[in-house]
């Protein structure tokens, strides 16, 4: 009979280095799912003891106590108490403590130890504590707590083996907790501080990097300039660094397409492969480099500890529209994708602020809009420089991001004033010490993001592309007629019905056509256009040129700008609507969100089109 491997939960305060320890123990083979009944992300993975026996690890959301004030904290409490139905109670706990922050972190540790589960304490980030001039006595701490204490540096993989050995021992010989449960919060805090004092051997004024960096990064003026410069650099990098890899991917797909054309006779199957699959899926995969660069920046900002500083700098401005610095982090993540952004709102304590943040998250320009922006900007905006090192194309892209942000701010102010009717917001957050991000952790995370994107390209986008190809290819236009294939097809006829609605905002037949599948995923708008033009191409030479020049030849500048404006506010993809429904427990808010975004997008595209027309564009 095989036995289930023991389940061990990593638990501790936010910023204790829990996830880094989890990555170090389990490696890259992690499973990401949700806890039963809630949308909190559950990360699990396998680790093994010295003799090879497996152990299943889960990484619980960071918490300050077993008395939760956020959804994340409630999950942590329910799992360690065994109260989450459908989830097995852990057999043991690894409490992750920030060695440099014992007096604040020990209180929660005491609460956890008192539960009586086999427990090991990982005294993590011991190197940072030493850097700051703190010397600790792990033995004394173990003596006071009554459980093994192992010094670890997760990011340098130090102390992992002793930790697993101690965990093995704790599982084999459970000891009753010696720690009496202190009744009041105050008494627990006092006890925590006493233990911390007993464990600290000496403390000298260290180099205090964090304080020095804060003096610069939180500077009343300098801090703002640095944050804006960082964001600008981020968006320029998304454009500039991705050029070469995008070229490689494009030529790869072109080679593939040519190869198929050389070996296959002209016909339906060849059209399906080259015009449908390669033109459609290829035009989306091309954007993988840009999406990874964006995620790279966001992951680095998070791992280094800068993200909460950005929240600090932004708090007052967010307060002006009824939000707080807490909303800044989910909103910044929404630049990569609104789905993790919306899930990250769970750390916001104020429920009205959380709802408002969810509702405006889709206005942050997510990476799925990048393909659309890139194609249109590439086709219509000249690649000239407006200043040293500042390209006009990058500047326009930056402007589109700013438009999204301003739209979001306006929407937030209106929502907080009239919809949630919230009077106040609050901002109260721990600011972790700065640390050098470990590239391995960043790499694991980037790989997970790339995989999610490619899976989407391989499933939703692949399916949407095929359906669209079929809708565009049938029924066949009669040979010799002067009606084009696209006009004659099923899709063309659907677009005919849609066209009168979007004609006033400057959209043509092709755009009407592309908007339908774009509801599944925004980047499909690009593959849809690519498929339309590939099928419509009269001869091989025209089909071989890429999408940009064709659009430039076919659309007016006013139409292109209106199309961009539409996508600044574009009604979000189906996945975002689904996650909003889950996070707000019903259809009321997702329907509200979709409606107001549609109205905004239509208005913005219309205003842009008619303004551009009046300037004669």
């Amino acid at each position, binding site marked *: 009979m095989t036995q289930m491997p023991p389940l061990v939960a990593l638990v501790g305060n936010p910023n204790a280095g829990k996830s880094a320890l989890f990555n170090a123990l389990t490696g890259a083979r992690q499973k990401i799912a949700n806890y039963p009944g809630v949308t909190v992300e559950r990360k699990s993975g396998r680790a093994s003891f010295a003799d090879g026996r497996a152990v299943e690890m889960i990484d619980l959301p960071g918490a300050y106590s077993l008395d939760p004030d956020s959804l994340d904290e409630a999950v942590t409490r329910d799992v360690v108490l065994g109260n989450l139905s459908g989830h097995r109670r852990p057999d043991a706990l690894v409490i992750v403590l920030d060695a440099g922050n014992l*007096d604040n972190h020990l209180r929660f540790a005491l609460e956890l130890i008192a539960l009586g589960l086999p427990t090991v304490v990982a005294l993590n980030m011991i190197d940072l504590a030493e850097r700051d001039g703190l010397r600790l006595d792990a033995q004394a701490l173990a003596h006071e707590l009554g459980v093994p204490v192992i010094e670890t540096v997760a990011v340098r993989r130090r102390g992992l083996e002793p930790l697993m050995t101690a965990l093995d021992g704790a599982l084999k010989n459970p000891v009753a907790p010696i720690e009496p449960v202190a009744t009041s919060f105050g008494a627990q805090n006092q006890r925590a501080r006493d233990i911390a004092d007993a464990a600290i051997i000496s403390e000298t004024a260290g180099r205090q990097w964090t304080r020095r960096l*804060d003096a610069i990064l939180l500077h009343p003026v300098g801090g703002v300039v640095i944050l804006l410069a960082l964001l600008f650099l981020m968006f320029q990098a998304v454009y500039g660094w991705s050029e070469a890899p995008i070229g490689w991917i494009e030529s790869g797909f072109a080679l593939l397409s040519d190869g198929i054309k050389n070996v296959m006779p002209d016909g339906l199957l060849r059209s399906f492969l080259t015009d449908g699959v390669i033109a459609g899926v290829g035009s989306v995969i091309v954007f993988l480099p840009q999406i990874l660069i964006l995620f790279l920046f966001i992951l680095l900002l998070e791992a280094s500890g800068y993200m909460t500083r950005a929240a*600090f700098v932004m*708090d*007052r401005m967010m307060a002006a529209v009824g939000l707080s610095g807490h909303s800044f982090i989910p909103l910044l993540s929404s630049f990569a994708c609104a789905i993790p952004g919306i899930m990250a709102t769970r750390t916001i304590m104020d429920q009205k602020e959380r709802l408002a943040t969810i509702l405006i998250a889709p206005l942050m320009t997510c990476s799925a809009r990048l393909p659309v922006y890139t194609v249109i900007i590439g086709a219509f905006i000249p690649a000239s420089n407006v200043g040293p090192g500042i390209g006009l194309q990058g500047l326009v892209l930056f402007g589109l991001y700013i438009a999204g942000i301003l739209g979001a701010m306006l929407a937030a102010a209106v929502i907080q004033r009239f919809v949630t009717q919230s009077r106040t917001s609050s901002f*109260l957050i721990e*600011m972790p010490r700065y640390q050098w991000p470990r590239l391995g952790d960043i790499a694991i995370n980037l790989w997970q993001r790339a995989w999610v994107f490619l899976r989407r390209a391989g499933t939703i986008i692949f399916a949407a592309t095929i359906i669209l190809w079929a809708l565009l290819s049938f029924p066949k236009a009669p040979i010799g007629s002067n009606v084009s294939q696209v006009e004659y097809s099923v899709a063309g006829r659907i677009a005919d019905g849609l066209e009168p609605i979007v004609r006033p905002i400057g959209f043509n037949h092709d755009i009407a056509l592309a908007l339908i599948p774009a509801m599944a995923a925004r980047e499909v708008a690009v593959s849809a256009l690519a498929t339309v033009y590939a099928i419509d191409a009269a001869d091989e030479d025209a089909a071989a040129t890429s999408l940009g020049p064709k659009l430039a030849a076919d659309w007016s500048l006013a139409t292109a700008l209106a199309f961009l404006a539409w996508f600044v506010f574009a009604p979000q993809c189906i996945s975002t609507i689904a996650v909003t429904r889950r996070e707000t427990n019903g259809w009321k808010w997702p329907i509200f969100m979709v409606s107001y975004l549609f109205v905004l997008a239509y208005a913005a595209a219309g205003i842009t089109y008619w303004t551009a027309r009046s300037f004669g564009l």
Partner: protein
Amino acid sequence: MQLDHLPLNQIAVIRSIDWESLPDHEGHRLRSLGFEPGVTIEALHKGILMWRDPLSVRVGRMTVALRTKVAAAIDCELST
């Protein structure tokens, strides 16, 4: 002296906290971050531009950001 009026970079001790004036969730989070009478505290930075809000303070060995409105509920005494 209230925390929002504390001069920067001077060590002080929390004398009392007016829990009643704080919304429940803020009081609770403040407690779990280690704000208690008797704890050492130091104001480090004030927010951006003309607002000078929020504040970053050191509590024990932890750095916490909070708004001046919450800081006003925390009464401190400069250590001599």
